[in-house]
């Protein structure tokens, strides 16, 4: 598993092994950036004493006080809109939505205000906002707390969209997002919060808009992001035992999207499978697959295949929930089909 591009931004010394949780990595990013820049502050529901629904902001209230860790009422449109007003006047809000599902309440502020103000005002306003939200299924939260709605955001000019898969990327990408002078929608898969990975202490960034080869391979390319990266890597591991070597590309940033590594990979493997947890129909995979077939048409030995969730809201019942979105097994099967298929 390589993180070549990310390493570029880090010191060249051999990194010390330091395993921390994904949510700790995010907390470090916020903490370090708040220390670095007094304009950075956190606003959201239960980000204070509670420490955020997934404990990302735990302990920050004690450190930074109520003026920089702002608990709001349950008012998602307010959260999004207050970030607009605060950012356009010079601050750098990190606004947390407990669940990305709740962003439905805030879509006007995110899409019609935050994303468009700069442009509508002739390119003069600067809105350095990070909208963080937990996403995804897998812990029995049912249909209103489990969606993967990245496709809503990737479609909106003026937004950047980030979806990390590892604690290392999470910290580095969040720092980039906080320093970015644009509106960044930062999507954190809730099943990843408790995953652990090696994360350097102190400052480093993973640049936005740079995808990452998480595993090299020659027979097929999986293009994916967020939690499905971990599933794809497990699937690749299994397939390797059958002699099938899969290359796994982690997009990391969905907008701006760096499709170059995926295209280069497909030029080598001639086969591509696009995987995401979101519902397949109308999902972001359509953009990825379309770009790959467009840019690597002459190299493809089979159509670009997509694997996403079935066409339903996320069901509560455990077997149904796990049956609804791509699993390691289903990825393995899809790769086998892709290779045999043509």
């Amino acid at each position: 598993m390589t993180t070549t591009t990310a390493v570029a931004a880090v010191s060249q010394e051999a990194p010390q092994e330091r395993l921390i949780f994904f949510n700790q990595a995010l907390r470090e990013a916020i903490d370090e950036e708040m220390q670095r820049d007094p304009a950075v502050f956190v606003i959201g529901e239960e980000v204070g004493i509670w420490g955020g629904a997934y404990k990302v902001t735990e302990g920050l209230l004690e450190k930074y006080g109520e003026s920089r860790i702002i608990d709001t009422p349950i008012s998602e449109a307010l959260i999004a809109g207050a970030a607009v007003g605060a950012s356009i006047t010079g601050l750098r809000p990190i606004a947390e939505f407990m669940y990305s599902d709740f962003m439905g309440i805030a879509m006007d502020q995110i899409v019609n205000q935050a994303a468009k103000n700069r442009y509508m005002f002739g390119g003069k306003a600067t809105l350095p906002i990070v909208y963080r939200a937990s996403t995804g299924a897998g812990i029995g939260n049912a249909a209103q707390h489990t969606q993967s709605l990245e496709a809503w955001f990737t479609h909106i000019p003026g937004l950047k969209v980030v979806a990390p898969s590892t604690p290392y990327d999470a910290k580095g990408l969040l720092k980039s997002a906080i320093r970015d002078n644009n509106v960044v929608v930062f999507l954190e898969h809730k099943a990843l919060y408790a995953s652990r990975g090696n994360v350097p202490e102190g400052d480093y960034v993973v640049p936005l808009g740079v995808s990452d080869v998480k595993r090299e391979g020659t027979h097929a390319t999986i293009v994916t992001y967020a939690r499905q990266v971990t599933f794809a890597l497990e699937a690749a591991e299994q397939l390797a035992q059958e002699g099938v070597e899969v290359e796994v590309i982690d997009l990391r940033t969905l907008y701006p999207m760096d499709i170059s590594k995926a295209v280069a990979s497909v030029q080598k493997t001639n086969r591509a499978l696009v995987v995401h947890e979101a519902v397949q129909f109308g999902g972001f995979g359509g953009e990825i697959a379309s770009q790959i077939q467009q840019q690597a048409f002459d190299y493809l030995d089979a159509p670009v295949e997509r694997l996403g969730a079935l066409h339903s809201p996320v069901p509560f019942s455990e077997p149904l929930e796990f049956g609804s979105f791509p699993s390691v097994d289903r990825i393995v099967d899809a790769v086998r089909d892709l290779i045999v298929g043509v």
Partner: protein
Amino acid sequence: MAENASQSGSQNGAVTLSRDKLLWIYQAMMRIRRFEEAAEEAFRNARMRGALHFYIGEEATATGICAELRTDDYITSTHRGHGHCIAKGGRLSKMMAELYGRATGYCGGKGGSMHIADLDLGILGANGIVGAGIPIAAGAALGAKLRGEDRVTVCFFGDGAGPTGAFHEGVNFAAVQSLPVIFVCENNNYGMATTSDKANAGPSIAGRGVAYGIPGVEVDGNDVFAVNAVAREAIDRARSGKGPTLIEAETYRFKGHTVHDMAPYRAKQELEAWLKRDPIERFKRVVESQNLLTAEDFDRIDEDVVREVEMAIEFAEASPFPPLEAIEQGVYAD
């Protein structure tokens, strides 16, 4: 400003409810309590999963209100919805099976605790989105009005929903259209760790009635008689076409926000003070002191309820999970 109805309950006066209604009230409150205790145990024993929000401690509110509703009246409920559902007549077995994610549950296992509905009983659904039931309740009441029916809709929501845009849009519209809906804010003093006063500006939620030109009534939500009296008036008002009422019932959740929450953010003494106001104990004290129900009545119901809850658990555990084919079924109607 807001009328204070905490005196209209029983403490200072004789209870005038029928024996049947008293039995019903006690049974409903005990059902809620025991159902959730059993669910909690099942959860702690890893026999179910997901997010469970317990209504324990707040039983008097749903019970006092639903005691005045007809089967064909509607309610909208919340993430903390077991109590509303049970008080409106929900079947414990189907509820428990739903919490277990089984095919026999109210939603065939697809909804879980936060999405229980029984349209035949007028239960238009629990809801995972805070405040979202308020516009829906307005719509149900609008429907009844358009059809010329005299059904009413009761909309339950928490103090945490007070600041939502959905609250304002829903209540304002209901007031403008004079819809047959009763808005019941269960102010249990907390969102998650956020206290109600840090979330809601102004002196009270009931006090907002003035802004909408509708009655706003505060009531002791742990006094089932007080709640019942306030509900009766509001329901009559709605049913007779006089429009909405905004009720704020002060209460307290004895448990944490979810089954995962040990509520470290609140003072032990606060909880203890509220435990002394346990709505079930208070009910018992009143009806016993007025010789309306007896220890035997309580015992019989207690036993019934225990058995019913045991059967619900057995039913749930004996039920199959839904088959994988179910995943894409029920998304669209034909």
